[in-house]
């Protein structure tokens, strides 16, 4: 038995093994007779105070291996264990090459070049397409990455549970306290920034072509309603192809209508199913598309209204405007509260070959000028730097006024919610609702 097993399954299999099952097992019928029949994940039992003591606390969600699932009201400090210590102070910098694991096109090549010049080390980038893929490859341990870019608070439990990160030594990270929003110096998912530092933040909102839409989306009582009134734009309307983001949208709409605060990390199957049904209405209303190519289709006019990540609109305005179309035809609205925000962080791989250089890279990206260049010249997602704000960018003519809303503000970040890791059972409800919606 190489794998841990579900308890109920064990007894059935033991029965099979001990009894006359051995004879049966030869035939196909035997195989079937011995099969377990369960969809309860392995090792899903919760940790935490049990028995009488358990009744005295409000239960907190529990993730892999009984680790706590961080929530704003359940901040987590990850331990630094004896076998996984941060590097010592004042070590000399390795010569590289620095291996970085990142989404495609998520670091400005010119900024990278500057780093290479400053530290005399080359940077090698490998890319991944989804957080799932990244964690699976990191866990397989085929490559020892120095720096990992782009994972979020929803991945941290996995990263810690599988011991994929090394703790940071803040003596190398002078720019963290100097430049970064205070709330992100000490995030609830990693108190004390022991394993991660912020890279860029973004939020979910609505991107639209103000030259094609008659409605004043940002001025509506509930701007999300625009999707349910998008008959005139049939075939040119999209939602993000991401189950958590997309299903959160109807949840936000309902909450906004009733003036309540939604729980975007809910595991209530009825709520999630309703969100799926609401989203499915869009099939009839506008034959909704499910894509993440809005940064390209909105500038090109192939879509005119799209559920969007804030950075998509900015990178669309920077890079994808066809000739003759001005970037100020793009508009973005994001909620001030109760919406979706996320912080993509930087971290260092446990088996990093260049840990000092990796720390230097983190600090380099936290530097105001570098973060700024990376943001406005390439990535389009906002670094949580104290000195960067939308007004300044508009004044300098870097982004059109219509996209001021796509630059995430600290107060907005604080009042919105991060999409966080759920229990396996919770994930399943979201997966099912999403699969149903996508089946049309």
């Amino acid at each position: 038995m190489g794998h841990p097993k579900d308890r109920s399954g064990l007894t059935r299999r033991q029965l099979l093994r001990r009894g006359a099952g051995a004879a049966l097992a030869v035939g196909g019928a035997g195989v079937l007779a011995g099969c377990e029949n369960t969809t309860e994940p392995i090792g899903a039992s919760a940790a935490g105070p049990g028995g009488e003591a358990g009744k005295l606390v409000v239960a907190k969600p529990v993730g892999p291996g009984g680790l706590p699932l961080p929530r704003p009201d359940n901040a987590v400090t990850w331990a630094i264990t004896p076998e996984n210590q941060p590097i010592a102070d004042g070590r000399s910098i390795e010569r590289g090459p620095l291996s970085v694991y990142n989404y495609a096109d998520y670091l400005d090549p010119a900024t990278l070049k500057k780093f290479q010049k400053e530290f005399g080390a080359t940077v090698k980038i490998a890319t991944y397409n989804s957080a799932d893929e990244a964690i699976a490859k990191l866990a397989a341990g085929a490559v020892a990455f120095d720096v990992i870019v782009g994972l979020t608070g929803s991945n941290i439990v996995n990263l810690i549970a599988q011991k994929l990160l090394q703790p940071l030594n803040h003596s190398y990270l002078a720019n963290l306290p100097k430049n970064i929003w205070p709330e992100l110096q000490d995030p609830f998912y990693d108190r004390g920034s022991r394993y991660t530092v912020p890279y860029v933040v973004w939020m979910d909102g609505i991107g639209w072509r103000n030259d094609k839409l008659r409605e004043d989306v940002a001025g509506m009582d509930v701007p999300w309603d625009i999707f349910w009134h998008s008959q005139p734009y049939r075939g040119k309307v999209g939602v993000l192809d991401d189950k958590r983001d997309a299903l959160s949208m109807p949840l936000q709409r309902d909450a906004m209508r009733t003036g309540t605060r939604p729980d975007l990390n809910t595991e209530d199957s009825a709520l999630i199913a309703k969100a799926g049904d609401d989203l499915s209405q869009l099939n009839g209303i506008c034959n909704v598309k499910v894509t993440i190519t809005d940064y390209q289709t909105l500038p090109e006019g192939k879509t005119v209204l799209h559920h969007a990540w804030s950075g998509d609109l900015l990178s669309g305005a920077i890079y994808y405007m066809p000739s003759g179309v001005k970037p100020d035809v793009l508009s973005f609205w994001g909620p001030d509260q109760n919406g979706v925000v996320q912080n993509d962080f930087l971290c260092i791989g446990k088996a990093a070959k260049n840990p000092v250089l990796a720390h230097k890279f983190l600090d380099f990206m936290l530097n105001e000028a570098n973060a700024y260049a990376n943001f406005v010249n390439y990535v389009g997602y906002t670094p949580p730097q104290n000195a960067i704000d939308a007004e300044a960018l508009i004044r300098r003519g870097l982004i059109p006024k219509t996209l001021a809303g796509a630059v995430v503000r600290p107060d907005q970040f604080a009042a919105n919610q991060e999409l966080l890791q759920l229990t396996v059972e919770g994930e399943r409800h979201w997966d099912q609702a999403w699969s149903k919606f996508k089946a049309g």
Partner: protein
Amino acid sequence: MGSRWTWRFLALPGVLWLGVFFLVSFYAVLCVAFGNQDSLSQPVPFWNPLDWNVGYVLEVLRNFWHGDQFLTVSLRTVEFVAIAMALSLLIGYPVAYFAARHSGRWKGLVLVLLIIPFWINYLMRMLAWINLLSPDGWGTRVLHNIGIEQLFLWTGLLSARGGWLDGQPSAVIIAFVYGYVPFLILPLFVALDRIDQRHIEAARDLGASRASAFLRVTLPLSVPGILAGCVLVALPMFGDYYTPDLVSASTKTNLIGNQIDQFTRQGSEKVVGAVLTMLLAIVLLALMFYYLRATRRAGEEAAA
């Protein structure tokens, strides 16, 4: 004796290749489908068939039984593939027939022209269509000018002028036909080219008209080619998910391949993805067996 062993030895790399990249990987899919997942939502394959867990397979089968989303997308997939296959045959047969029977000394050139689309990556060809069919694209203009757009609007296959990319099932089917039709033409060309000209001459000598010689001699003799071509286009279409994603991305064109992609690549329920993969493979295997039986029978009839 020695030569027999030489041939067996030469077959070894191919057998190993198939063994490792098909049988072993398919067994891995089975072990995931009949496995479980851990509390990180990562699949835990059960390598020993005696340990297999049918929970997820039953869950998916229940979904089909209750007529939920998996049945919806499966029926849609069958519908799309059937229509695309029929259209491919309608387009491909005359082309293959012409190339095999009437192109004379240009046969080589015609064959090269048929193979040329293979030189360009499938994704590139699809991306080209996206530009051609965008509202102000060249393709859209041509289709408008020659009246095909009007025909599609009239038959309800297109919902708005210039709206080819607005999430239309017809656009996905057209893309399927365009992308896969060469796979149908080539085996058909080979089958038609192999038909002994004397059979047709004999039919004509015995008083058959052109049409009846075609219907009673050429067509039956080309059945193995038709079947081979249909299988070759149907198999990749059944698993295709990027074509509907590229030319439509609408939920109305979500196919079984998209669901598998969603569960295995984006979702947390990779076990469900493996179950769907396994079920699709079983259906395709059944189709393959039908094809093998049909061609063997056709071969026996031809020999008789």
